[in-house]
């Protein structure tokens, strides 16, 4: 049996985390290929339904990456994203997926190393948690 390789979706703000991913590349930093990046205009744009649909379609873990506190290009999108992520974590617990599969992280555009570190940490965390139970149930059905 193949070892479990999680699928991780990273919703990355165009102004910070997405650029940080570029920076990680420029720095020749490797990070796990498990992470699929979705560029968004602001972390505040990421809605509950985007997160749920990603889990529904088989993501094992998700993180929303926004700007550092006070640095949001749209003033407070990252703060809204943090609140939304906290609320969706509760909903994921209710569903039975587990809120720990979702995280909010904050990165500046220059933090290439931090981007790669987070990608590694998140991949390792989800690898330990195992597959998304929804995806597992669907595959079994």
């Amino acid at each position: 049996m193949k070892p479990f390789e999680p699928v991780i979706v990273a919703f990355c703000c165009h102004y910070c985390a997405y650029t940080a991913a570029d920076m990680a590349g420029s720095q020749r930093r490797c990070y796990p290929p498990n992470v699929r990046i979705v560029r968004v205009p602001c972390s505040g744009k990421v809605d509950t339904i985007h997160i749920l649909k990603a889990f529904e379609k088989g993501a094992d873990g998700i993180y929303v990456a926004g700007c550092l506190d006070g640095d949001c290009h749209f003033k407070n999108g990252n703060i809204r994203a943090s609140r939304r992520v906290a609320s969706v974590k509760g909903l994921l617990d209710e569903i039975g997926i587990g809120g720990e599969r979702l995280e909010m992280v904050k990165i500046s555009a220059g933090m290439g190393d931090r981007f790669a570190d987070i990608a590694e940490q998140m991949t390792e965390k989800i690898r330990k948690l195992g597959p998304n139970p929804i995806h597992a149930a669907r595959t079994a059905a």
Partner: protein
Amino acid sequence: MITAERKPLEEIIAYVRPFDRILLVGCNECVTVCAAGGRKEVGILSSALQMAFLKQGKNLQVKEHTLERQCDPEYVEELSSMIDGADAVLSMACGCGVQEVARRYRDKPVFPAVNTTFMGASERQGVWAERCQGCGDCLLGITGGICPIARCSKQLLNGPCGGSTHGKCEISPDVDCAWQLIWDRLKALGLENRYEEIIPAKDWRTGRGGGPRKIIREDLAE
């Protein structure tokens, strides 16, 4: 507007567990504005329910539809083309909408997905507060535009009571004393004299005291 909050997922799951095909119906009016049961919340609940059931090995079919207004028969009629494809209806509208769907489609079980809470106004983004209890005999004209029925914990007509401290109600430091607000407003309007006039005991028959109410407009009713 009428405000509502989604019920705990566990309770909703228990309602729909016996069924395989659900029609999940939202409403574009009040529950959309208070982010409880509009198109967006319908999408979220649909996804959440499908995943929760899939985890238990069941493939729940959910048809999503959001009506312009779920408390009017004209709009509820829209569901007639899709009702046969569902074993049960789950409504995200207020209690009025749930009952209208139940009245129109008598042979379908209808369940509420939200708890209808109160008639209120938005204080700021994401915060709603009770403002009206629909007593049927509005007092706002003599209380400076602040309702003692909805906003005074004791519904006092001649307040405040001894529990008012620094403008707050004794039930919680987060609750304003309605009568303090009324006094402050009357003072700002130069209407202090109005405060001296005793408001007589209220006739509660215009409210729920008279049983379920109905409005019949002779000029409009058919």
